[in-house]
């Protein structure tokens, strides 16, 4: 086990301690009502949820793509010292990782197209419940869609990067191996595609606005 005094552990420990101390403070000073999940779900704006979804969708996809690119890229450049012929063929692995970021940006644009302003002042009495439910559902759906595409692409990017690194090093030893290990990479990149499919399914029913 690495030393517990590394900066990462110190930051995590301080954040957890701050959270725990704040929670105990609220408990012991009779302010337990401040843990209000109902407020979190009912009174926060749906736009908070939708924009969080969009932001996390694109940024986590890009983190996945970046992780994959640096994993594969460093292996290509390291293996290319003794076998410089692998440079151009292994750019295909890098492109697989980049595709993950493209999925993220496409979904971020698709999700953000669903955001429209709504005005509770003009809602009729009978449709207040329906419109409130619909707008809130749209906000949550966009949050879920962004999270789905973001995390799926994150994991897919890391996976494709690791396999691409293996493919580059195998290619450096025997050039006929690259195409076969590319099959494993294709299985890996299918995972990002699944995330995009589910994300699209989640936003198709998301409708914001003043019409029920």
């Amino acid at each position: 086990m690495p030393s517990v005094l590394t900066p990462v552990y110190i930051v995590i420990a301080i954040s957890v301690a701050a959270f725990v101390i704040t929670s105990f403070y609220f408990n012991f000073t009779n302010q337990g009502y401040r843990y209000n999940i109902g407020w979190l779900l009912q009174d926060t704006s749906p736009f908070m949820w939708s924009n969080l979804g969009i932001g996390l969708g694109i940024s986590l996809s890009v983190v996945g793509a970046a992780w994959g690119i640096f994993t594969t890229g460093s292996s290509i450049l390291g293996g290319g010292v003794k076998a410089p012929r692998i440079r151009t063929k292994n750019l295909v692995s890098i492109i697989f990782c980049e595709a993950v970021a493209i999925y993220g940006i496409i979904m971020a644009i698709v999700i953000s197209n669903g955001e429209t302003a709504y005005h509770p002042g003009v809602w009729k009495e009978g449709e207040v419940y329906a419109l409130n439910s619909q707008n809130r559902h749209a906000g949550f759906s966009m949050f879920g869609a962004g999270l789905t595409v973001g995390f799926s692409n994150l994991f897919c990017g890391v996976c494709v990067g690791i396999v691409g690194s293996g493919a580059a090093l195998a290619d450096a030893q025997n050039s006929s191996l690259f195409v076969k290990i590319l099959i494993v990479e294709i299985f890996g990149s299918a995972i990002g595609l699944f995330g995009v499919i589910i994300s699209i399914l989640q936003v198709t029913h998301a409708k914001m606005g003043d019409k029920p």
Partner: protein
Amino acid sequence: MSMDLEHADSPPYSSFFGVMGVTFAMIFSALGASYGTAKAGTGISCISVVRPDLIMKSIIPVVMAGIIAIYGLVVAALISNDIKPKDYTLFKSFTHLGAGLSVGLCGLAAGVAIGMVGDAGVRGTSQQPRLFVGMILVLIFAEVLGLYGLIVALILSTKSG
């Protein structure tokens, strides 16, 4: 707005839990499938140098890890077709959350198991060909764990009430 009795069982925030069910189903199965693909893929890259003829047989763990992602995809698609903007009861919404969590976390565990078994299996098969059938048997047991999650998720998502 949240105080009327007529809509007490389907409050406006109920879709949050259903949507989180869809999200968890896809995210955790994707994590399991990615881990499995990457770990088995590293093993395949290692053995491909000494035994290139075994590569095609060694892709089996990768395929099985991909199937875990498909379990998550199926459940997520099934659940998200059921989520409605209004009159979406808390009963259905929490059932969907449970379904998503079960397939997701079971898929995560199964994917990790498939990855580790696949990695060790392909490395062993390259040195001892008689281990191939043993690797397949262990992989099947690991895959079935993801299937259990899918079964529970399907039971939950088809509950009506």
